[in-house]
Protein backbone atom coordinates (compact mmCIF):
# COMPACT_ATOMS: atom_id res chain seq x y z
CA UNK A 1 0.00 0.00 0.00
CA UNK A 2 1.20 3.48 -0.86
CA UNK A 3 0.73 6.64 1.20
CA UNK A 4 -1.05 9.58 -0.39
CA UNK A 5 -2.76 12.71 0.91
CA UNK A 6 -6.53 13.08 1.18
CA UNK A 7 -7.89 16.58 0.97
CA UNK A 8 -11.34 17.21 2.45
CA UNK A 9 -12.97 20.55 1.85
CA UNK A 10 -16.27 21.68 3.35
CA UNK A 11 -17.29 24.75 1.40
CA UNK A 12 -20.41 26.72 0.51
CA UNK A 13 -22.20 25.26 -2.51
CA UNK A 14 -21.90 28.46 -4.52
CA UNK A 15 -18.09 28.22 -4.37
CA UNK A 16 -17.77 24.50 -5.10
CA UNK A 17 -17.14 24.92 -8.83
CA UNK A 18 -14.30 27.31 -8.04
CA UNK A 19 -12.82 24.76 -5.60
CA UNK A 20 -13.21 21.93 -8.12
CA UNK A 21 -11.41 24.00 -10.75
CA UNK A 22 -8.53 24.47 -8.29
CA UNK A 23 -8.30 20.69 -7.77
CA UNK A 24 -8.30 20.06 -11.51
CA UNK A 25 -5.69 22.76 -12.14
CA UNK A 26 -3.44 21.20 -9.49
CA UNK A 27 -3.51 17.98 -11.50
CA UNK A 28 -5.58 15.85 -9.13
CA UNK A 29 -7.12 13.03 -11.12
CA UNK A 30 -10.50 12.93 -9.41
CA UNK A 31 -12.74 14.28 -6.69
CA UNK A 32 -16.22 13.67 -5.27
CA UNK A 33 -18.73 16.32 -4.20
CA UNK A 34 -21.24 15.36 -1.50
CA UNK A 35 -24.16 17.42 -0.18
CA UNK A 36 -24.15 18.44 3.49
CA UNK A 37 -27.43 18.26 5.38
CA UNK A 38 -27.00 20.68 8.28
CA UNK A 39 -24.35 22.12 10.51
CA UNK A 40 -23.15 24.77 12.91
CA UNK A 41 -20.53 27.45 12.40
CA UNK A 42 -19.99 31.18 12.87
CA UNK A 43 -22.34 31.05 15.91
CA UNK A 44 -25.16 29.94 13.65
CA UNK A 45 -26.93 26.68 12.87
CA UNK A 46 -27.81 26.08 9.26
CA UNK A 47 -30.02 23.61 7.51
CA UNK A 48 -30.64 22.74 3.87
CA UNK A 49 -34.40 23.22 4.34
CA UNK A 50 -34.09 26.86 5.41
CA UNK A 51 -32.89 28.45 2.24
CA UNK A 52 -34.82 28.10 -1.00
CA UNK A 53 -32.05 29.75 -3.00
CA UNK A 54 -29.74 26.96 -1.78
CA UNK A 55 -27.06 29.67 -1.68
CA UNK A 56 -26.37 28.81 1.96
CA UNK A 57 -25.96 25.09 1.33
CA UNK A 58 -22.61 23.49 2.03
CA UNK A 59 -20.93 20.65 0.17
CA UNK A 60 -18.07 18.30 1.01
CA UNK A 61 -15.38 17.77 -1.61
CA UNK A 62 -13.01 14.84 -1.23
CA UNK A 63 -9.95 14.16 -3.33
CA UNK A 64 -6.85 11.98 -3.01
CA UNK A 65 -3.50 12.53 -4.68
CA UNK A 66 0.23 12.61 -4.24
CA UNK A 67 1.70 15.21 -1.90
CA UNK A 68 2.92 17.61 -4.58
CA UNK A 69 -0.50 17.92 -6.24
CA UNK A 70 -2.41 18.19 -2.96
CA UNK A 71 -0.06 20.89 -1.61
CA UNK A 72 -0.43 22.81 -4.89
CA UNK A 73 -4.24 22.61 -4.62
CA UNK A 74 -4.07 23.74 -0.97
CA UNK A 75 -2.43 27.05 -1.95
CA UNK A 76 -5.26 27.91 -4.35
CA UNK A 77 -7.95 26.68 -1.97
CA UNK A 78 -6.41 28.75 0.82
CA UNK A 79 -7.01 31.85 -1.35
CA UNK A 80 -10.56 30.71 -2.08
CA UNK A 81 -11.33 30.33 1.62
CA UNK A 82 -10.07 33.85 2.20
CA UNK A 83 -13.41 34.99 0.82
CA UNK A 84 -15.76 32.01 0.99
CA UNK A 85 -17.17 30.09 3.93
CA UNK A 86 -15.49 26.74 4.48
CA UNK A 87 -12.77 24.64 6.07
CA UNK A 88 -10.13 22.36 4.58
CA UNK A 89 -8.22 19.47 6.10
CA UNK A 90 -5.49 17.19 4.74
CA UNK A 91 -4.72 13.75 6.09
CA UNK A 92 -2.42 10.91 5.17
CA UNK A 93 -4.17 7.89 3.69
CA UNK A 94 -3.17 4.54 2.25
CA UNK A 95 -4.37 3.67 -1.25
CA UNK A 96 -4.58 0.26 -2.89
CA UNK A 97 -3.92 1.34 -6.50
CA UNK A 98 -1.40 4.24 -6.50
CA UNK A 99 -1.29 4.32 -10.30
CA UNK A 100 -4.77 5.80 -10.31
CA UNK A 101 -3.67 9.01 -8.55
Amino acid sequence: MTKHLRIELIVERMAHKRACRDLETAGLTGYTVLPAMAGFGGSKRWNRDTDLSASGDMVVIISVGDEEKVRSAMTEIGDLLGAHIGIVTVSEVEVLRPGRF
Partner: protein
Amino acid sequence: MVAALLRSQMSVPESIAKGLAIYLMMAIGLKGGVEMSKNPLTMDIMLVLLAGIVLSFLIPLLAFIALRLTTKLDRIDAAATAAHYGSISIVTFVAATEAVRLSGLDSGGHLVAVAALMETPAIITALFLASRGGARREPVAGSEQGELVREVFLNASIVVLVGALAIGWIAGEEGTASVQPFFVDLFQGVLCLFLLDMGLSAGRGLRQGWRQLSVPTVGFGIYMPLISAGIAAAIAGLLGMPAGDAALLITLTASASYIAVPAAMRLALPEAKPSIYLTLSLGVTFPFNVTIGIPIYIYLALLVAGQG
Protein backbone atom coordinates in the same frame (compact mmCIF):
# COMPACT_ATOMS: atom_id res chain seq x y z
CA MET B 1 -43.87 30.29 10.31
CA VAL B 2 -45.11 29.83 13.90
CA ALA B 3 -44.52 26.07 13.56
CA ALA B 4 -40.91 26.70 12.54
CA LEU B 5 -40.36 29.23 15.33
CA LEU B 6 -41.62 26.61 17.79
CA ARG B 7 -39.07 24.17 16.32
CA SER B 8 -41.58 21.88 14.63
CA GLN B 9 -39.97 19.12 12.58
CA MET B 10 -42.55 19.66 9.83
CA SER B 11 -40.95 20.42 6.47
CA VAL B 12 -41.74 20.28 2.78
CA PRO B 13 -39.06 18.13 1.07
CA GLU B 14 -36.47 20.35 -0.59
CA SER B 15 -36.89 18.98 -4.11
CA ILE B 16 -40.69 19.34 -3.92
CA ALA B 17 -40.34 22.96 -2.77
CA LYS B 18 -38.05 23.68 -5.73
CA GLY B 19 -40.52 21.97 -8.07
CA LEU B 20 -43.38 24.05 -6.65
CA ALA B 21 -41.34 27.22 -7.21
CA ILE B 22 -40.77 26.30 -10.86
CA TYR B 23 -44.48 25.48 -11.26
CA LEU B 24 -45.52 28.86 -9.82
CA MET B 25 -43.08 30.79 -12.00
CA MET B 26 -44.16 28.90 -15.08
CA ALA B 27 -47.86 29.39 -14.29
CA ILE B 28 -47.46 33.12 -13.65
CA GLY B 29 -45.26 33.49 -16.76
CA LEU B 30 -47.77 31.70 -19.00
CA LYS B 31 -50.68 33.68 -17.56
CA GLY B 32 -48.81 36.96 -18.11
CA GLY B 33 -47.84 35.97 -21.65
CA VAL B 34 -51.43 35.07 -22.55
CA GLU B 35 -52.66 38.41 -21.13
CA MET B 36 -49.98 40.25 -23.10
CA SER B 37 -51.00 38.47 -26.33
CA LYS B 38 -54.47 39.99 -26.04
CA ASN B 39 -53.23 43.58 -26.28
CA PRO B 40 -50.61 45.31 -28.43
CA LEU B 41 -47.36 46.49 -26.84
CA THR B 42 -48.12 50.18 -26.28
CA MET B 43 -45.90 53.06 -25.21
CA ASP B 44 -47.63 53.00 -21.78
CA ILE B 45 -46.53 49.40 -21.27
CA MET B 46 -42.99 50.21 -22.39
CA LEU B 47 -42.88 53.05 -19.85
CA VAL B 48 -43.94 50.68 -17.05
CA LEU B 49 -41.18 48.24 -18.08
CA LEU B 50 -38.69 51.11 -18.03
CA ALA B 51 -39.98 52.30 -14.65
CA GLY B 52 -39.38 48.81 -13.24
CA ILE B 53 -35.76 48.80 -14.43
CA VAL B 54 -35.11 52.33 -13.10
CA LEU B 55 -36.64 51.43 -9.71
CA SER B 56 -34.51 48.30 -9.45
CA PHE B 57 -31.37 50.36 -10.17
CA LEU B 58 -32.27 53.16 -7.72
CA ILE B 59 -33.85 51.41 -4.70
CA PRO B 60 -30.54 49.75 -3.64
CA LEU B 61 -28.95 53.19 -3.52
CA LEU B 62 -31.59 54.40 -1.05
CA ALA B 63 -31.44 51.13 0.88
CA PHE B 64 -27.64 51.41 1.10
CA ILE B 65 -27.81 54.99 2.42
CA ALA B 66 -30.49 54.00 4.96
CA LEU B 67 -28.45 51.02 6.15
CA ARG B 68 -25.23 53.03 6.45
CA LEU B 69 -27.00 55.80 8.37
CA THR B 70 -29.09 53.70 10.74
CA THR B 71 -27.16 50.46 11.25
CA LYS B 72 -23.58 49.41 11.94
CA LEU B 73 -23.32 47.28 8.81
CA ASP B 74 -20.09 47.77 6.88
CA ARG B 75 -20.03 48.79 3.21
CA ILE B 76 -20.00 45.22 1.86
CA ASP B 77 -22.84 43.95 4.08
CA ALA B 78 -24.88 47.09 3.40
CA ALA B 79 -24.37 46.80 -0.37
CA ALA B 80 -25.29 43.10 -0.40
CA THR B 81 -28.40 43.75 1.70
CA ALA B 82 -29.37 46.71 -0.49
CA ALA B 83 -29.25 44.46 -3.58
CA HIS B 84 -31.94 42.24 -2.06
CA TYR B 85 -34.28 45.21 -1.60
CA GLY B 86 -33.83 46.47 -5.15
CA SER B 87 -34.56 43.06 -6.61
CA ILE B 88 -37.92 41.31 -6.26
CA SER B 89 -39.60 38.37 -4.57
CA ILE B 90 -41.56 36.37 -7.11
CA VAL B 91 -43.60 34.64 -4.37
CA THR B 92 -44.68 37.99 -2.92
CA PHE B 93 -45.61 39.02 -6.47
CA VAL B 94 -47.66 35.84 -6.99
CA ALA B 95 -49.43 36.37 -3.65
CA ALA B 96 -50.13 40.00 -4.61
CA THR B 97 -51.51 38.91 -8.00
CA GLU B 98 -54.04 36.74 -6.19
CA ALA B 99 -54.84 39.50 -3.68
CA VAL B 100 -55.38 41.99 -6.53
CA ARG B 101 -57.66 39.54 -8.32
CA LEU B 102 -59.66 38.88 -5.13
CA SER B 103 -59.99 42.66 -4.62
CA GLY B 104 -61.85 42.77 -7.93
CA LEU B 105 -59.05 44.62 -9.76
CA ASP B 106 -57.60 43.74 -13.15
CA SER B 107 -53.88 43.58 -13.82
CA GLY B 108 -51.95 43.38 -17.07
CA GLY B 109 -49.72 40.47 -18.03
CA HIS B 110 -46.83 42.83 -18.70
CA LEU B 111 -46.26 43.12 -14.94
CA VAL B 112 -44.73 39.62 -15.15
CA ALA B 113 -42.21 41.03 -17.63
CA VAL B 114 -41.59 43.89 -15.18
CA ALA B 115 -40.90 41.28 -12.48
CA ALA B 116 -38.32 39.55 -14.67
CA LEU B 117 -36.68 42.86 -15.60
CA MET B 118 -36.46 43.97 -11.97
CA GLU B 119 -34.54 40.89 -10.81
CA THR B 120 -31.04 41.92 -11.82
CA PRO B 121 -30.35 45.69 -12.08
CA ALA B 122 -30.16 45.88 -8.28
CA ILE B 123 -27.22 43.47 -8.29
CA ILE B 124 -25.28 45.80 -10.60
CA THR B 125 -25.98 48.80 -8.33
CA ALA B 126 -24.87 46.78 -5.28
CA LEU B 127 -21.58 45.79 -6.92
CA PHE B 128 -20.96 49.44 -7.78
CA LEU B 129 -21.72 50.48 -4.19
CA ALA B 130 -19.45 47.76 -2.79
CA SER B 131 -16.55 48.74 -5.03
CA ARG B 132 -16.62 52.43 -4.18
CA GLY B 133 -15.09 51.68 -0.78
CA GLY B 134 -11.56 51.34 -2.07
CA ALA B 135 -9.60 50.67 -5.20
CA ARG B 136 -10.91 48.34 -7.88
CA ARG B 137 -11.99 45.06 -6.25
CA GLU B 138 -9.78 42.09 -6.95
CA PRO B 139 -11.63 39.18 -8.56
CA VAL B 140 -12.62 36.56 -5.98
CA ALA B 141 -10.10 33.70 -5.85
CA GLY B 142 -11.01 30.89 -8.23
CA SER B 143 -13.71 32.88 -10.04
CA GLU B 144 -14.22 32.26 -13.72
CA GLN B 145 -15.08 34.82 -16.34
CA GLY B 146 -18.79 34.85 -17.13
CA GLU B 147 -19.69 32.88 -13.99
CA LEU B 148 -21.49 35.80 -12.33
CA VAL B 149 -23.16 36.93 -15.55
CA ARG B 150 -24.56 33.40 -16.03
CA GLU B 151 -25.83 33.32 -12.45
CA VAL B 152 -27.39 36.78 -12.70
CA PHE B 153 -29.01 36.60 -16.13
CA LEU B 154 -29.62 32.88 -16.53
CA ASN B 155 -30.74 31.84 -13.05
CA ALA B 156 -33.71 29.46 -12.85
CA SER B 157 -36.30 32.09 -11.99
CA ILE B 158 -35.45 34.36 -14.93
CA VAL B 159 -35.20 31.49 -17.44
CA VAL B 160 -38.53 29.93 -16.36
CA LEU B 161 -40.36 33.24 -16.02
CA VAL B 162 -39.18 34.75 -19.31
CA GLY B 163 -39.48 31.42 -21.13
CA ALA B 164 -43.07 30.85 -19.98
CA LEU B 165 -43.94 34.49 -20.69
CA ALA B 166 -42.66 34.14 -24.26
CA ILE B 167 -44.53 30.84 -24.75
CA GLY B 168 -47.76 32.34 -23.41
CA TRP B 169 -47.33 35.45 -25.56
CA ILE B 170 -46.68 33.46 -28.75
CA ALA B 171 -49.25 30.70 -28.15
CA GLY B 172 -52.01 32.96 -26.82
CA GLU B 173 -55.18 31.77 -25.08
CA GLU B 174 -56.03 29.09 -27.63
CA GLY B 175 -52.52 27.68 -27.74
CA THR B 176 -52.29 27.30 -23.98
CA ALA B 177 -55.84 25.98 -23.48
CA SER B 178 -54.66 22.38 -23.16
CA VAL B 179 -52.35 23.17 -20.22
CA GLN B 180 -54.98 25.35 -18.51
CA PRO B 181 -56.19 22.61 -16.10
CA PHE B 182 -52.65 22.12 -14.82
CA PHE B 183 -51.36 25.69 -14.75
CA VAL B 184 -54.54 27.62 -13.87
CA ASP B 185 -56.95 25.35 -12.00
CA LEU B 186 -54.32 23.95 -9.63
CA PHE B 187 -52.57 27.28 -9.15
CA GLN B 188 -54.16 28.38 -5.87
CA GLY B 189 -53.67 25.01 -4.17
CA VAL B 190 -50.01 24.89 -5.16
CA LEU B 191 -49.56 28.49 -4.02
CA CYS B 192 -50.96 27.53 -0.57
CA LEU B 193 -48.54 24.62 -0.33
CA PHE B 194 -45.64 26.80 -1.41
CA LEU B 195 -46.54 29.56 1.04
CA LEU B 196 -46.58 26.91 3.78
CA ASP B 197 -43.01 26.01 2.83
CA MET B 198 -42.02 29.66 2.62
CA GLY B 199 -43.48 30.26 6.09
CA LEU B 200 -41.44 27.36 7.45
CA SER B 201 -38.29 28.64 5.70
CA ALA B 202 -38.87 32.18 6.96
CA GLY B 203 -39.47 30.95 10.53
CA ARG B 204 -36.38 28.70 10.52
CA GLY B 205 -34.25 31.43 8.95
CA LEU B 206 -35.40 33.88 11.60
CA ARG B 207 -34.84 31.41 14.45
CA GLN B 208 -31.34 30.55 13.24
CA GLY B 209 -30.24 34.05 12.27
CA TRP B 210 -31.98 36.52 14.58
CA ARG B 211 -28.91 36.97 16.76
CA GLN B 212 -27.11 38.55 13.81
CA LEU B 213 -29.74 41.27 13.45
CA SER B 214 -29.74 44.45 15.51
CA VAL B 215 -32.98 46.35 16.21
CA PRO B 216 -32.19 49.05 13.58
CA THR B 217 -31.50 46.31 11.00
CA VAL B 218 -34.85 44.62 11.71
CA GLY B 219 -36.47 48.06 11.53
CA PHE B 220 -34.94 48.49 8.07
CA GLY B 221 -36.62 45.23 6.99
CA ILE B 222 -39.98 46.82 7.81
CA TYR B 223 -39.59 50.48 6.80
CA MET B 224 -37.58 49.97 3.60
CA PRO B 225 -40.45 48.16 1.80
CA LEU B 226 -42.74 51.03 2.80
CA ILE B 227 -40.31 53.66 1.43
CA SER B 228 -39.95 51.66 -1.80
CA ALA B 229 -43.73 51.32 -1.99
CA GLY B 230 -44.15 55.09 -1.60
CA ILE B 231 -41.71 55.78 -4.45
CA ALA B 232 -43.32 53.17 -6.71
CA ALA B 233 -46.78 54.57 -5.91
CA ALA B 234 -45.62 58.05 -6.95
CA ILE B 235 -44.25 56.68 -10.24
CA ALA B 236 -47.45 54.65 -10.83
CA GLY B 237 -49.44 57.85 -10.28
CA LEU B 238 -47.24 59.80 -12.71
CA LEU B 239 -47.65 57.08 -15.35
CA GLY B 240 -51.42 56.98 -14.77
CA MET B 241 -51.38 53.23 -14.18
CA PRO B 242 -54.66 51.43 -13.40
CA ALA B 243 -55.04 50.33 -9.75
CA GLY B 244 -54.35 46.61 -10.34
CA ASP B 245 -51.14 47.26 -12.29
CA ALA B 246 -50.05 49.93 -9.81
CA ALA B 247 -50.57 47.52 -6.88
CA LEU B 248 -48.32 44.95 -8.53
CA LEU B 249 -45.60 47.48 -9.42
CA ILE B 250 -45.67 48.75 -5.83
CA THR B 251 -45.47 45.19 -4.47
CA LEU B 252 -42.57 44.32 -6.77
CA THR B 253 -40.65 47.42 -5.69
CA ALA B 254 -41.38 46.78 -2.01
CA SER B 255 -40.47 43.10 -2.09
CA ALA B 256 -36.99 41.76 -1.38
CA SER B 257 -35.27 38.89 -3.14
CA TYR B 258 -34.29 35.69 -1.31
CA ILE B 259 -33.60 33.37 -4.23
CA ALA B 260 -31.71 35.02 -7.08
CA VAL B 261 -29.80 37.74 -5.22
CA PRO B 262 -28.41 35.62 -2.32
CA ALA B 263 -26.92 33.23 -4.87
CA ALA B 264 -25.41 36.10 -6.88
CA MET B 265 -24.04 37.71 -3.71
CA ARG B 266 -22.27 34.49 -2.68
CA LEU B 267 -20.42 34.63 -6.00
CA ALA B 268 -19.80 38.37 -6.26
CA LEU B 269 -19.48 39.49 -2.62
CA PRO B 270 -18.62 36.35 -0.65
CA GLU B 271 -17.33 38.47 2.26
CA ALA B 272 -20.88 39.72 2.93
CA LYS B 273 -22.69 37.84 5.68
CA PRO B 274 -25.66 35.80 4.40
CA SER B 275 -26.97 35.53 7.97
CA ILE B 276 -27.76 39.26 7.76
CA TYR B 277 -29.18 39.73 4.28
CA LEU B 278 -31.00 36.41 4.01
CA THR B 279 -32.51 36.53 7.50
CA LEU B 280 -33.66 40.07 6.85
CA SER B 281 -35.24 39.52 3.44
CA LEU B 282 -36.71 36.06 4.13
CA GLY B 283 -37.37 36.23 7.87
CA VAL B 284 -38.53 39.83 8.24
CA THR B 285 -39.53 41.49 4.95
CA PHE B 286 -41.20 38.51 3.26
CA PRO B 287 -43.68 37.77 6.09
CA PHE B 288 -44.28 41.51 6.57
CA ASN B 289 -45.10 41.97 2.88
CA VAL B 290 -47.36 38.93 2.61
CA THR B 291 -49.39 39.73 5.73
CA ILE B 292 -49.41 43.52 6.17
CA GLY B 293 -47.63 44.96 3.14
CA ILE B 294 -49.82 43.73 0.28
CA PRO B 295 -53.09 45.22 1.67
CA ILE B 296 -51.24 48.53 2.20
CA TYR B 297 -49.86 48.42 -1.36
CA ILE B 298 -53.32 47.73 -2.83
CA TYR B 299 -54.71 50.65 -0.82
CA LEU B 300 -51.86 52.89 -2.05
CA ALA B 301 -52.57 51.78 -5.62
CA LEU B 302 -56.26 52.62 -5.25
CA LEU B 303 -55.29 56.06 -3.92
CA VAL B 304 -52.91 56.89 -6.79
CA ALA B 305 -55.39 55.54 -9.34
CA GLY B 306 -58.04 57.85 -7.86
CA GLN B 307 -60.21 54.95 -6.64
CA GLY B 308 -59.35 55.19 -2.94
